[in-house]
């Protein structure tokens, strides 16, 4: 049996993150760690060490998917793991992220009021007001929290659905962060890749 390292337990972080956001939405900001660390590692170290070792979400899918083996271990359809879908989903996800930043800007500039709800699947508005007491922080900080938590929860739910339907870490194939960091690595090592 392979020995365990501290980072093998980061799946707990994923559970803690979503639990904290259920009680206080401001904890959603902690998700920025999962956003910046993979990019920093890819840019400076030129690898996907975050995806390969540190991603708590991926570990959680492995654990849950392994435990729920009775759902089968089917291969995802080819279109879902194709390059077109991966890069298309990355573009869509980035567009939605920019939209969320724009909504935060509108609240910061007082063009609209704080919306104490999260949007699931970019469509369904779910009231989430028990997680925030108005006036605790500037409205734009709270707005970003609601927007970011909605994005994180949506991607988690998509990941769980494909985990149940297909192999445990199917989400990792089209995870926007994974696609982005792989692209950074390919750009960084393009001279090595040509030699290989």
């Amino acid at each position: 049996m392979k020995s365990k390292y501290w980072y093998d337990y980061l799946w707990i972080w994923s559970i803690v993150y979503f639990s904290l956001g259920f009680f206080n939405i401001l904890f959603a900001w902690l998700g920025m760690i999962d956003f910046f660390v993979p990019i920093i590692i890819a840019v400076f170290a030129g690898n996907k060490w975050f995806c390969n070792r540190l991603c708590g979400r991926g570990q959680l899918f492995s654990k849950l998917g392994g435990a729920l083996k009775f759902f089968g271990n089917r291969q995802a359809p080819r279109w879902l793991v194709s390059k077109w879908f991966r890069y298309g989903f990355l573009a869509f996800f980035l567009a939605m992220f920019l939209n969320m930043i724009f909504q935060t800007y509108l609240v910061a500039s007082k063009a609209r009021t704080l919306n104490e709800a999260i949007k699931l699947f970019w469509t369904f508005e779910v009231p989430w007001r028990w997680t925030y007491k108005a006036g605790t922080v500037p409205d734009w900080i709270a707005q970003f929290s609601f927007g970011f938590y909605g994005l994180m929860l949506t991607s988690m739910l998509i990941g769980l659905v494909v985990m149940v339907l297909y192999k445990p870490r199917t989400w990792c194939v089209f995870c926007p962060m994974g696609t982005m960091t792989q692209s950074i690595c390919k750009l960084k090592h393009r001279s090595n890749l040509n030699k290989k």
Partner: protein
Amino acid sequence: MSPKKYASVDRSRCASCGECTRVCPKGAINVFYGCFAAVNIENCIGCGKCARACPAGCIKVNSFR
């Protein structure tokens, strides 16, 4: 004697998620600079665990002829 089996990766489809590296009992597969998985054929025993685990379905087990 049965022919030696080994895994091979379709690099163009690999998402370099690293799932194969976690299940390989021989440590014969690595993620090459975050770009794609690469198999060390000398260490690979062709057990197929990586192929079964790969969510992108880009690993195959081949035999030497």
